[in-house]
């Protein structure tokens, strides 16, 4: 399977997560089936997506809001946007990839778009939950410790 096509499929799921939608687990079977065949540089994306979907499906409403805000926050710091006048504030509340990429939001701004808790403690809490889920997913799929655990002395979210 073409890794780029798989990534495009993942981006479709990312877009729905950024909109705060829940994703049925069955839709992600294509990722789990690929398993060990995933290229190394694609692995973090796959694991992060699986963990985010799991949290989105199992978390409370507050967790879902905070997760949506956190994903918007992180994705807004990727890419670049040359014409920001095309984005209206109203669209950000239900925005997806196209709206958030390159916006470089602060955490309070991102939290406001998802009606989440704007304190940095909330960001740390959701980071910690996501980290735990990522670790579980990584070990479950690849059978080895998560890469940030292997760094030795590296700073983890606590």
């Amino acid at each position, binding site marked *: 399977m073409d890794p780029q096509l798989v990534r495009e499929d993942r*981006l*479709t799921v990312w877009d729905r997560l950024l909109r705060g939608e829940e994703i049925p687990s069955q839709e992600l079977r294509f990722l789990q089936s690929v398993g060990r065949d995933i290229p190394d540089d694609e692995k*973090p994306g796959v694991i992060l997506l699986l963990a985010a979907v799991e949290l989105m499906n199992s978390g409370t409403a507050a967790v879902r809001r905070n997760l949506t805000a956190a994903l918007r926050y*992180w994705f807004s710091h990727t890419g670049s946007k040359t014409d920001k006048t095309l984005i209206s504030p109203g669209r950000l509340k239900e925005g997806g990839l196209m709206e958030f990429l390159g916006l470089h939001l602060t955490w309070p701004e991102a939290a406001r778009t998802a009606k989440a808790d704007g304190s940095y403690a909330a960001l740390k809490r959701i980071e910690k939950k996501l980290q735990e889920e990522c670790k579980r997913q990584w070990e479950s799929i690849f059978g080895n410790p998560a890469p940030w655990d292997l*760094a030795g002395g*590296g*700073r983890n979210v606590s």
Partner: protein
Amino acid sequence: MFRDFEEFVKHATAREVAPIRHVYHPDLELMLAYLAGDLNSYARSKLNAHIATCSHCQHRWKQLVTTLNKEMEVLRRLSPAFALARSRPGRVCLRSWYENWWKRKWETLTFPAFRPALAWAGAVMVGVALGLGITMALVLRTNYSTANRLATLTREIEDLKVQLALGHSLSTDIIVPSLAPEEISQLMAQVTEFSDPWLKALVIANFLNLRGLYLTWEIDWRQLIEHRVQPGETWQSLAETYLGTATLWPVIYLLNAREEPPDSLPPVGEIIVIPARK
């Protein structure tokens, strides 16, 4: 290898949105359907995912959105079509129709460069019309009031002529106040030369007649009434009581005064004479 989870997340997200060399691209209709909100959640996210990783489609998307925004701006500037639903049942909103008609005419002017000049010309014409209207109203109002006053004066003169022709005296309201204080003093000097009240009355009547003031029609000089002055009575109150009007007070004063000035009170307890009224 990642130093921490944050770096892991940064790497993952950045890698996820890295550009993809796509073979197929969505057509314009799909993009328009997206903008119209006609796509379902999955199709919308699929298109988003494609555009986010395709520089070619990002450029197309940007052009499409810019063009649509311009079109929307033009549509906003144009007047909305007349909506029957907004008017009351059975009634056509003439004002709305009229305003829209003017807006359409204005927007469809052949030479937009002339619009400011036309606006100015219209404003000047309205100003001139207003000025003319106000001036005409003032002139007509002045003419009307002048004509009214002239007509009133003419009527009064005609009445006076008739009264004089009939030998009637003029109204006492007009006559007595017209005597100046100097004239009253002069008359006083003449009257004090006589002690007989009847003679005094004759002198007063003669004095007034010489000035064209005919009091004989209202006052009977031949019948002089005697009156004892009570405290609080004035020349004016006595004139009002006996002659019917306070303005005839100089007649009583002249008949009875000796040394007192015109603003004095009649001597209390003394008997004064007052001509009877016919």
